[in-house]
């Protein structure tokens, strides 16, 4: 196909302006990502410094750089502080960053795959499915797969819940927001009820209490040696989704249109469902169901960088990491010495956000003539 050769001065100036806009878009993304990366580092240092024992940020920097072998400062801190920063807080901050990033990208992809702005692992009952899978393993002491039994069961539970919600919410090729949220709530309620029943009737009373606290979502009690699995899940998730970003964009055009542009929609969605369930399952196994991160972050990020997944995914990942680190800091600080499950705090921000989003959506579809 050949482009027309006519080239008036006006057309040329329009084209130059357009080229300028394209470059401006890329520059804006680069700036956004760089700013978020700096904020992430600052947030992580804050996460290491703030808590029941306050460590000055300068000392945190010294301890961390010393630990990775890049330190020039003479150690002027106590061994206890080093332990607190490196062995207690560092894994926790890292898990917060990993979980925040993971939930944000899972939410982003889920909204594209289900073609609904309210899709999110927690709201759709996917996290509940993962929790139930994990609890079944704990209560019945299943160790079929050794140390990965728990995440494997959480993955299976997540996938089952996702397929169930998708199948019940879909009618005639369309998923209405109302049906999606209703079936998500209903399925989450049933799964949670089964989970509570299992915990209340189990013989192991003490364990049950610990598990009950975990089902509220929290980052406490994580150790270095359990961190690799969530980390690997995050890298896998972001890697695959970034490679598939163009195809996620196609789904925004509608399923038929996506097919005409070369996407085998059913196969693509099935594969992505497995991937998202895997990431969600592993994250839930590590830190319990933490809600609304996957809902809020993608929407906030789209307001800044637009809707192209090649830009939304990395931005949402960084934003989610920052958000959850701060949510966890707040969870440690607001009622100190008592620690609040971080899931309670994210729900506190996320609930109102959800309501605002729902109203905005209703307004928009009214504007579009009920489309």
């Amino acid at each position, binding site marked *: 196909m050949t482009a027309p050769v006519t080239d008036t001065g006006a057309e040329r100036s329009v084209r130059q302006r357009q080229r300028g806009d394209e470059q401006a878009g890329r520059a804006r993304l680069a700036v956004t990502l760089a700013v978020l990366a700096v904020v992430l580092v600052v947030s992580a240092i804050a996460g290491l410094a703030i808590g029941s024992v306050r460590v000055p940020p300068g000392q945190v920097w010294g301890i961390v750089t010393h630990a990775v072998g890049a330190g020039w400062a003479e150690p002027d801190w106590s061994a206890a502080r080093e332990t607190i920063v490196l062995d207690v807080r560092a894994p926790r901050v890292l898990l917060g960053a990993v979980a925040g990033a993971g939930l944000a990208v899972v939410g982003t992809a889920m909204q594209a795959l289900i073609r609904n702005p309210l899709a999110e692992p927690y709201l759709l009952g996917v996290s509940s499915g993962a929790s139930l899978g994990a609890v079944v393993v704990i209560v019945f002491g299943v160790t079929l797969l050794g140390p990965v039994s728990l995440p494997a069961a959480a993955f299976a539970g997540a996938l089952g819940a996702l397929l169930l919600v998708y199948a019940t919410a879909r009618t005639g090729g369309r998923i209405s927001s109302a049906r999606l949220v209703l079936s998500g709530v209903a399925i989450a309620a049933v799964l949670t009820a089964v989970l509570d029943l299992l915990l209340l009737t189990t013989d192991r009373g003490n364990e049950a209490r610990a598990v009950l606290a975990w089902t509220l979502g929290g980052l406490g009690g994580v150790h270095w040696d359990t961190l690799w699995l969530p980390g690997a899940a995050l890298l896998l998730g972001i890697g695959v989704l970034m490679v598939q970003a163009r195809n996620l964009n196609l789904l925004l*055009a509608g399923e038929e*249109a996506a097919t005409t542009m070369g996407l085998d929609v059913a196969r693509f969605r099935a594969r992505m469902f497995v991937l998202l369930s895997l990431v969600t399952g592993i994250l839930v196994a590590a830190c319990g169901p933490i809600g609304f991160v996957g809902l809020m972050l993608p929407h906030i990020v789209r307001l800044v960088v637009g809707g192209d997944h090649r830009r939304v995914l990395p931005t949402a990942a960084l934003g989610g990491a920052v958000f959850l680190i701060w949510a966890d800091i707040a969870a440690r600080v607001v009622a100190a010495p008592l620690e609040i499950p971080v899931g309670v705090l994210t729900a506190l921000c996320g609930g109102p956000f959800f309501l605002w989003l729902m109203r905005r959506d209703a307004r928009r579809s009214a504007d579009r003539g009920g489309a």
Partner: protein
Amino acid sequence: MTGTELVIDSVTLTAGAHRLVEDVSLAARPGEVVGLVGPNGSGKSSLLRAVYRVLRPASGRVGVDGADAWSLPVRQLARTVAAVVQESGTESDLSVREVVAMGRTPHKRLLDGDTPQDAGLIRWALAAVDATALADRPFDRLSGGERRRVLIARALAQQPSLLVLDEPTNHLDIRHQLEVLATLRRLPATVLVALHDLNLAAYYCDRLYVLCDGKVVASGPPADVLTPRLLAEVYGVRSEVTVHPRTGAPQVTFLPGEPSAAAPAVP
């Protein structure tokens, strides 16, 4: 003339027990603009869906340059066949340029970036539908007609050699209807287009197929196909067909009253 040859061979399409299209055959030679006309529910959209691989034929074959469209990989077919469909997408926060850029996807490998050639094609496609000024607007905020034009630009950016369009002129004002159809005629591609407006179809299409109740009832050059008798049979309307002195194309004028040929008896 360049373009892909399309041969639809005795295709039957069903939805459950209901027959949407029955034993339809249609051929479009490379570079030809073929129009599909017929009343609501006559099976136009269904037939197009069988070509762009959304509705699998219960029997029959859709041949694209000799290959079975339904046995090619979806991506490979999308490099040859583009479509403008009726379905609307979801809220997306995408700009118009990003929507048109989607059309480049089938030509891209997984990690390919957007090249200057892509950007040039996107600009050309937007200009072809008079949407250059819309490039940076949010797609969600456009009017129905503007959106339609952008979706046509997206299909053009796909560089198809067979372009399938379902009512592309819906919601367009008259100037843009004419411009879009004129653009289709200039494309180095075969075009299969479903149209409501018989006069536009007569002027811009090389040949027409008339569908009624899922069957082809007439086909050929517009002047042979569009007769008062056929229009009475298919649409149940009275009409007069003249050759327009300026355009040389058949001109349909609808007349009030019952058609004498197919008038149902008054009880």
